[in-house]
């Protein structure tokens, strides 16, 4: 008997395992499923996700890159309905374009215990031109209801052989089963780049492929023989490299605040064409190592070639530097000159588009035009300056050597004393060593005159400070009158300038009024808003009602009043990915509170300090009571741009403690 039970159980297990992933074979069990048993919050799940990319040879077109996709998606609830609409981008350039063909798509519902299929209609497929380089295909499934399963398969034929879409293994919804394949003939050598938190390794094998070539020869006969046509068929054998990925139960990725770019952690594989070698032809290299990438870039006319051009600016730069000899001053002059002369048109890229010369003349350029021009001018002025390839935050971290790894370029200038400075002339409020926030992403790659490269750390080392000095008179009715002086440096100043420079003063005061929930601002002044070398200094005088609670003959208040941190920015109980602040920072307060006449201190919060592990951050709270006055100093500092997820709980507690400590009350009693 026992045996039978065991056997029965075993059979059952097999039944569950044996899902049929042929198109159209959607099972009743799949339709009956009410939620994903491993992630009940999932609104949909890829039951099966299939992709096969391979190269196909035809005599007319030569090699083509074919990608076949087949996906089966379970939709649990209305939030999952978005997965019933699929959107694809197809690339094109000049006469070449990717083609979308062979769509087969159906929705399955359970009606009265029966599986009912609804096929997609032609009118639900849309193709249109999104830009010069891109077509978009969209299709949406019919008969979508909670609990339904959809399936679609299609094929994309691409003439862009070096452009293999990334194999992505992790999505916002879970995947039950994934099967992916990449097959490339020996003539194409690809480099495999993996990234993400979730490790994936393929099974690799080799297989033989064949190309049939038909040739037709016409020979004109001599003498009496007629014209002959002969058909010949030759066959070429080659080796195909096959990588297969099989994954089960891949968890969904979930969004978290303060993540640099979640794609940095998404598990994926990138196939980068490194070289091609066809029979009887020379090897043609694309890229393999970082050195190759750098060399290719440097030799590119739209990069290295642009650095060499000097004629278009020589007169102006000569005039500009006529009386300057100090190298640091030269850098400042040239940097300000480029910023004032050429404006950024909003386009990224480390290669120029119209070229530096035209950009200079038209006073508008992309990132490469502006910063390569800057590098070139600095070199012309005798400064050791290098272009630095950067990948912006949205573009992700370039973990592997690829030409697409970088999308931005800045400038690095080095001085004889060993110091160096990073520059980006595309934003008017950036400054020496203050780059746009989007460029603060891991490491850049500086390229020297020989075309060799070195890493440059892009995360700022210097603290960005926010210092507030308050002098406050507390009145018996709980209102306060005070003066505030705020100093903001580096990135804090950049943010301020980007947000408020150019705004009408009255408007700004109104904003400030409202930011602090209705304070009355009496005098206001801001200094250094355009003097980028100096911190922003903002001073104002203010009044605000009900800042202390009056209970009996006592006054209760927090010494930070309306400046205190009210809310912990970290709400999730735990997290997977590092917290990325972008730059280290310190917020400090020095507060002097003059007590209302006739009151004495009854109790003060305790002094205290606490810190994050590994010296990642510190909070200090100091309070001194005198006869008519209380002095408070508070400092909180995060020392690192990035804090690993292993410290998340500590970080969350750290901020919670700050909120608690800053809310602690001072009590005064009427004498």
């Amino acid at each position, binding site marked *: 008997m026992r045996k039978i039970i065991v056997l029965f159980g075993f059979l059952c297990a097999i039944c569950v395992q044996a899902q049929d992933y042929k198109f159209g074979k959607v099972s009743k069990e799949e339709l009956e499923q009410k939620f994903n048993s491993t992630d009940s919050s999932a609104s949909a799940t890829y039951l099966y996700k299939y992709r096969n990319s391979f190269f196909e040879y035809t005599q007319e077109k030569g090699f083509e890159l074919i990608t076949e996709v087949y996906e089966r998606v379970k939709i649990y609830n209305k939030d999952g309905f978005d997965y019933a609409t699929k959107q694809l981008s197809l690339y094109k350039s000049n006469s070449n374009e990717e083609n979308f063909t062979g769509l087969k798509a159906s929705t399955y519902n359970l009606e009265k215990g029966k599986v009912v299929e609804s096929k997609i209609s032609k009118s639900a497929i849309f193709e*249109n031109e999104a830009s010069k380089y891109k077509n978009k295909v969209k299709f949406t499934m019919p008969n979508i209801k909670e609990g339904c399963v959809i399936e679609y398969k299609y094929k994309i034929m691409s003439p862009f052989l070096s452009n293999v879409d990334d194999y992505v293994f992790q999505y916002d919804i879970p995947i039950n089963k994934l099967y992916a394949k990449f097959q490339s003939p020996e003539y194409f050598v690809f480099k495999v780049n993996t990234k993400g938190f979730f490790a994936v390794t393929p099974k690799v094998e080799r297989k033989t492929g064949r190309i049939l070539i038909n040739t037709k020869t016409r020979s004109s006969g001599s003498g009496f023989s007629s014209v002959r046509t002969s058909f010949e068929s030759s066959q070429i054998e080659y080796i195909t490299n096959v990588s297969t990925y099989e994954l089960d139960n891949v968890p969904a990725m979930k969004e978290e605040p303060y993540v640099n770019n979640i794609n940095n952690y998404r598990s994926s594989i990138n196939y980068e064409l490194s070289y091609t070698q066809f029979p009887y032809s020379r090897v043609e290299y694309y890229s393999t190592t970082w050195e190759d990438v750098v060399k290719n870039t440097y030799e590119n006319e739209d990069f290295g070639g642009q650095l060499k051009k000097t004629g278009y600016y020589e007169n102006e730069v000569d005039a500009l530097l006529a009386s300057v000899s100090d190298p640091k001053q030269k850098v400042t002059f040239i940097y300000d000159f480029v910023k004032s002369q050429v404006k950024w048109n909003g386009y990224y890229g480390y290669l120029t588009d119209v070229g530096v010369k035209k950009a200079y003349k038209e006073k508008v350029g992309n990132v490469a035009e502006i910063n390569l021009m800057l590098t070139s001018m600095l070199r012309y002025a005798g400064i050791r300056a290098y272009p630095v390839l950067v990948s912006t935050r949205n573009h992700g971290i370039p973990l592997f050597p690829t030409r697409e790894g970088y999308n931005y370029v800045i400038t690095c200038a080095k001085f004889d004393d060993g110091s160096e400075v990073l520059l980006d002339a595309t934003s008017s409020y950036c400054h020496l060593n203050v780059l746009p926030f989007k460029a603060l992403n891991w490491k850049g790659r500086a390229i020297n005159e020989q075309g060799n490269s070195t890493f440059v750390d892009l995360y700022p080392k210097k603290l960005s400070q926010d210092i507030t000095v308050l002098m406050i008179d507390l009145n018996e009715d709980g209102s306060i009158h005070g003066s505030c002086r705020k100093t903001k440096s580096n990135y804090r100043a950049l943010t301020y300038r980007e947000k408020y420079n150019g705004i009408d003063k009255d408007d700004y005061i109104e904003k400030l009024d409202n930011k602090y929930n209705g304070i009355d601002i009496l005098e206001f002044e801001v200094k250094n808003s355009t003097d980028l070398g100096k911190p922003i200094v903002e001073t104002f005088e203010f009044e605000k009602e009900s800042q202390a609670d009056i209970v009996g003959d006592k006054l209760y208040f927090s010494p930070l009043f309306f400046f205190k941190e*009210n809310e912990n920015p970290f709400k999730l109980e735990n997290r997977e990915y590092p917290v990325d602040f972008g730059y280290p920072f310190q917020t400090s307060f020095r507060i002097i509170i003059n007590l209302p006449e006739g009151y004495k201190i009854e109790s003060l919060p305790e002094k205290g300090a606490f810190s994050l592990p590994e010296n990642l951050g510190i909070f200090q709270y100091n309070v001194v009571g005198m006869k008519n006055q209380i002095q408070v100093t508070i400092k909180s500092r995060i020392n690192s741009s990035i804090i690993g997820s292993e410290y998340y709980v500590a970080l969350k507690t750290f901020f919670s403690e700050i909120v608690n400590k800053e809310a602690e009350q001072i009590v005064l009693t009427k004498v």
Partner: protein
Amino acid sequence: MIPKFFVNILFVFTSFLVVSQDLSYNALTISPDLKKDANAIIRLNDVSIVMETASKMYTKGKRVVTVFNKRGNKHVNAHAYYDETTKIKDLKAIVYDGFGEPLKKIRESDFKDVSAVDGGTLYSDSRVKYLEYTPASYPYTVEFTYEIVNENTAFIRSFTPINDYFLSVENSQYSIAYGEEIQLRTKENNFNAIELIKEDKPGILKFRVKDIPAFEPEAYSPATNVLLPEVMIASDKFVYEGVFADVNNWKSMGSWFHNNLLKGRSAISTGTRSKILKLVDGVDNPIERAKIVYQFVQDNARYISVQVGIGGMQPISAIEVDLLKYGDCKGLSNYTKSLLEIAGVESYYTRLYASRDNVLNVKNDFVSFQGQTNHVILNIPDNGNDIWLECTSQDAPFGFIGAFTDDRDALVITPEGGQIKHTKKYLPEESLQSISGEYSLTGAGDIKAEVVIKSMGIQYDDKYKLDSETPRELDKHYKTRWRYINGLVLHDFKIVNNKDDVIFSENVVFEASKYAKIVGDRMLFSVNAFNRNREIPNRYRNRKFPLKINRGFKDVDVFTITLPKGYKIEALPHDVLIENKFGRYLAEVQKIDETTIKYSREFTVLDGQFPKENYAKFRDFFKTVAKNDNAKIALIKTNTNP
């Protein structure tokens, strides 16, 4: 003989030249009044329309904008839409520097050409050409000229000299020349503060304004499309996608719409037909039958926006929605209407302007769809107790339209013609949120709490989407809702969405450490832990617009508080009662026994429009509420050695 019409054309198309000759593009000479608060200024906007017959409309325009800073770039607005019935004949632009010297000429082929699909739309066959220009310095001026031919004449653009904040206008003019068969109707709105110069001659109509200073947005003010000056223009005769119309009142417009765009689009497959008949079999009450049908649509069809050709105003046929099980607002409304018909319930296709913040009426006295409608719902007359159905939502309760389409005039289209009706208005007491809760404090100041929140009316609308959120999102939601409670840990929550009675109930249990602050022998805490109104409306030193509260609401709260052992009450907040024309606020704290306190609160805000002078008082009201919602109780340690 030159036909009169062509004289007009000549006259119209040359009219702006007269202005532009003496118009300098120098930005330095712009009057300071027009520079104040302006990110950009419209130097000239000249629109000339020629409509000889109802089947074609030519528009020629010139728009000259000087931009002062980067926030003003968006006002250049050099773009033109085109599709099957709208063709661009000419498009060009010239950029000038601050002194009015030409910098760059941009030809039509240099304009970007993209599909005009916005985020929410799956497909649209409309495309747009737009100018992309990066200024090298400010100020700069763009002169944009265009010529467009339109075969649709149902939408004649209005004369709207100003349409955005921080934008001033030097000159704006509009003319429309029309053939003898055309009768035009116009309606002027909001010109009390701005002088409208008019010229009305046979065959041509002209409007002009000048020197309008920039204005800033203000909170709690009427919607811009209610505030801003505009002349609406419509022709009795028009052609819409090849369909001719001759209408001059909503009744006849409705008939035209019904006969040409709706009729014959309600067929349904026999399968679905018998399903519906079976579902409503034995149900006598027509409203109950309508509920069944509405539920059927919600369970079966989803919203997808596809804009193809006539799709602009005509719904796709019901049979197509029946097959695909999706549609846009038009398609889904028409589908629901067709199914209701099968169930023997009469309902009407209704066009209106949907927007939460821009509550805009279809004007009873001005018959045209231009700018007046953007959405479709259904109306069930139910003997005068109008029921409104939002057919694009798969989770709204039957008859619940919420803030998207409430309280506004709509065009109800019946086979007998069109009719203006007012949609459901949610009265403050209908938009009720009641919280009953209890919390206790420990000796360490930690709070343990359990609350039951019931929401109705517009407050139901604000919350019912929570029903489909994941536990992780709900956890975040409650931590954000009570963000003033540091370190909140959620223990349990239960949500019941009662669609029959339209009541959304939440039951939440949470805990937080150090909610009460311990100061020496005392403990201090805000008594209102669950429903603090912390909003203080922005202050304006010089308020320009009237105060407008779109929707009222009412909150009723009763909390029971258990005090920690070893403490007794030292001081309680005073009771507060405020009553004024904006609403009512009541807060009472009552000592039940040595360890129990009862807190009652009522906060009602009434909807309405008030003169701008009232704004400061309204702000004070909210300020006082915020202050009292933060009122504290002080406890003191009981003497351990009596």
